[in-house]
């Protein structure tokens, strides 16, 4: 946010926009979060808080959560770092393929991984049991770390690739001309310069790991974490206040780490000091260094390919590993009932929420970069809450807030939006969740795009007499169209694959695809679960393909988009 903003007075459009986005964000996320805090102060909730220090079970759950976050942060960042390093610094065949494979986990339902890992490496897994004759202890901590690291390392990968590319090659050359060997340069120059990126990746993965609910449910076994504990409190023990209390405990580290992460990622401005970068960094040529890196990179790729092959093939095979005969039964089964409605309602709701999220993200980006001086950071933070607040917490917040109509003095202000008996079968609450969870992606790409556009364009428009809204529509928006569409792409993918908040507010009238996958997988019907996963991936990829084609077709400038948590 280094671009200068002039302290001009806000015009009507800007004022309205600020009030509107703040109001929308308050309704969509601030109020639900505050409701949780309020709900957690009820008796069963305070019991949870009181026993945090005395009750070893709760203490264990907290410890498990933090330890899982640290482990996933460490391994995910490590894998992301190595793959990014290979991508930027090593010359080899198939670079593009490795890049795409490293991004694949971003667009799949998070628990597709967990289910496939169980089928391949579980107690009666094809590889673990049938090929190696072992029954590994997959459920619990080891399985969670493997699955979560594999699902979220692309976030670290993208983050670090961007950062490595932005390093001035002359800095490496300077070290080299001062006599430093390749390894010494890596140790004393490259690595220290990447520390902000490494730290921020670690923290992002930490938040993702502790916020995840689907994987602990599928593969967590007895390893209880706060998100699964909150889920059990609400869906098993019907104790909303206790669930709210566990959510509050989860919210605290998530928000804290998110704030620290923001601080770290802003420190990366230290990377480029001055001048324009010259040339490219000489790729690593030494075979001794290249071979282990490439072996590692392709192993990760092979693992990802194997997982997705299991998902795709698993959908066409009776029981993968047990009865390997081709069948269309799984597809017949899902289309005979569970998939049709879920498919329709999920796609419709995601399609409505996506443009809303994209538009909101763009307006936020425009206000943050171009309009606000003081308060820009605060607004940016508010907009990013959709990512910072764990889905579990958000879902419980919605259940607490919108399961009853909001009445002031006997007059209904907001009708019941979530739960059984809500208007439109609770669809409104789900679309609200989709919107607030996806708009940060739009906001980030919008900010990245606007930062590259000269602010004097806006000023030129204003000096020619255009109003704030005209400037936004005719100048800013067309210039960030590419980023807008990219933002949409990720917003859609994120909506379609969202699970944790949905589990708390979905109703029988509005079935959700991800929820159905979890249900199938939970009851051991892996074939139908795989068929649904494949269906979901196909839909997401097609929509991404269409949007991507639209971006290129318009010949818009290619913008670097910062991706945040897929």
């Amino acid at each position, binding site marked *: 946010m280094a671009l200068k903003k002039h302290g001009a007075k806000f015009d009507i459009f800007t004022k309205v926009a600020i009030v509107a986005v703040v109001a929308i964000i308050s309704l969509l996320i601030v109020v639900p979060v505050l409701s949780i805090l309020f709900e957690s102060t009820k008796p069963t909730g305070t019991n949870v808080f009181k026993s945090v220090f005395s009750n070893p079970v709760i203490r264990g759950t907290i410890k498990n959560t933090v330890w899982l976050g640290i482990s996933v942060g460490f391994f995910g960042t490590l894998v992301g770092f190595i793959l990014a390093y290979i991508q930027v610094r090593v010359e080899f065949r198939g670079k593009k393929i490795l890049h795409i494979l490293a991004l694949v986990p971003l667009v799949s339902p998070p628990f597709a991984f967990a289910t496939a890992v169980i089928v391949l490496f579980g107690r009666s897994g094809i590889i673990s049991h049938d090929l190696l004759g072992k029954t590994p202890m997959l459920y619990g901590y080891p399985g969670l770390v493997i699955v979560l690291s594999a699902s979220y390392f692309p976030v670290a990968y993208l983050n670090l690739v961007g950062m490595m590319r932005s390093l*001035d090659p*002359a*800095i490496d*050359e*300077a*070290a*080299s*001309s*001062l*006599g*430093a*060997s390749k390894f*010494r340069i890596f140790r*004393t*120059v490259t690595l*220290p*310069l990447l*520390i902000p990126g490494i730290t921020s990746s670690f923290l992002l993965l930490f938040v993702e790991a502790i916020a995840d609910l689907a994987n602990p449910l599928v593969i967590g076994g007895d390893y209880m974490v706060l998100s699964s504990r909150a889920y059990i409190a609400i869906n098993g023990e019907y104790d909303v206040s206790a669930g709210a209390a566990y959510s509050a405990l989860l919210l605290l580290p998530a928000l804290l780490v998110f704030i620290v992460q923001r601080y770290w990622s802003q420190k990366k401005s*230290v*990377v*480029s*000091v*001055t*001048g*324009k*970068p*010259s*040339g490219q960094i*000489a790729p690593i040529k030494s075979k001794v260094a290249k071979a282990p890196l490439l072996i590692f990179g392709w192993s990760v790729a092979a693992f990802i390919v194997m997982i997705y092959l299991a998902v795709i093939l698993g959908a066409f095979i009776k029981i993968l590993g047990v009865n390997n005969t081709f069948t269309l039964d799984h597809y017949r089964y899902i289309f005979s009932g569970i998939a049709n409605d879920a498919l329709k309602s999920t796609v419709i709701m995601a399609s409505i929420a996506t443009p809303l999220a994209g538009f909101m993200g763009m307006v936020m980006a425009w206000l943050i970069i171009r309009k606000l001086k003081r308060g820009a950071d605060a607004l940016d933070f508010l907009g990013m809450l959709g990512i910072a607040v764990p889905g579990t917490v958000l879902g419980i917040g919605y259940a607490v807030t919108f399961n009853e109509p909001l009445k002031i003095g006997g007059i209904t202000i907001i009708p019941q939006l979530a739960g059984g008996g809500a208007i439109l079968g609770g669809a409104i609450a789900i679309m609200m969740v989709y919107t607030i969870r996806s708009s940060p992606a739009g906001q980030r790409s919008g900010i990245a795009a606007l930062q590259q556009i000269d602010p004097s364009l806006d000023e030129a428009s204003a000096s020619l007499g255009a109003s704030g809204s005209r400037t936004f529509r005719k100048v800013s928006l067309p210039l960030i169209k590419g980023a807008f569409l990219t933002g949409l792409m990720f917003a859609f993918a994120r909506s379609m694959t969202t699970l944790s908040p949905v589990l708390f507010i979905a109703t029988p009238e509005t079935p959700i695809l991800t929820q159905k996958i979890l249900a199938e997988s939970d009851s051991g019907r892996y074939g139908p679960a795989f068929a649904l996963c494949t269906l979901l991936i196909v839909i997401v990829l097609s929509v991404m393909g269409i949007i991507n084609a639209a971006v290129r077709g318009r010949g818009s400038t290619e913008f670097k988009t910062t991706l945040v948590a897929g």
Partner: protein
Amino acid sequence: MKSGRLELKGLVKEFGKGQEVVRAVDHLDLVIEPGEFVTFLGPSGCGKTTTLRMIAGFETPTSGSILLDGKDVSSLTPDKRPMGMVFQSYALFPHMTVAENISYGLKVQKLSNDEIQKRVTDVLASMSLDNLANRAPNQLSGGQQQRVALARAMVVQPKVLLFDEPLSNLDAKLRGQMRAEIRSIQQRLGITSIFVTHDQDEAMSVSDRIVVMRNAIVQQVGTPTDIYRAPNSVFVADFIGRSNFLKVTDISSSANGSADVTSLGKTFTVPAHVDAKAGNSLLLVRPESITVSRQPIAGKISGEGVVKTVIYYGEHVEYTIDTANGEIVATTSDPSPAEILAVGEKASFSFEANRAWLLPKA
């Protein structure tokens, strides 16, 4: 014998593959003597930076070799060559202080802490950076960063110092100051230096010799005086300074670096390039060699024309004169107001025959 003699033999660099090969440097031969300051000068894309990067080791020559004090260094990686480089972007390590930046190369050499301390202190003092030792690079001004970059490259006592357009990110005033500083340090230490720039003023003011390059090929190698006063082609004459080219109708005889030429209807003797022959030559006259007046000046070669533009700069006046030879640019120093001609006035332009230079067109 002093060390730091650099020899470039048949150096060629090609980029790209198959049909798309682009030759960036084409058979470059050059010997740079120990302690010499040589500048590669040319428009962007002429191959000057590529040549420098081959000397440093960041690019591998397609063919040819690079010899340092008689030893072939072509196959050595940059860290094995005793050369220091100053980058256009300075390339200071942003995560290290000024002192840490400067001691980096010394630590690589595994010198004792006392020795490192001493050398860093010395170089900081000699570059007037003493009070900045603990600053981070992004807390320094452009000129200070430039000095740190130079100190960092010098402190390891390289045999050759390489400069890749090091002054292009500074403002005009600082640029002048820094180039004087670089030149005086270089002369004091006597380190062989190679400097790359596209700025002719920079090249003229710091170099012992200038290598003018164009489209991968060396056009001329010479001292600043040679290059300015005796360019070997229209390109070099035009690239260094400003030029007027007069048509030459006849060259009657040429020998010993001079020729009898007929131009502006007169025949006179001028210094000449060996390759200047009748039919392919032009007469170069620099604007500052030409005097513009109302009457022709006796004893000088002169022609006539009409004043087209007059620009008053204070210390000099610049005229454009429309003549039968095309437009002629002339500058007159220290003009008194009464002597300044007006637009539309008839004018004579005159120059001394020995200030002209006969050169081949290409």
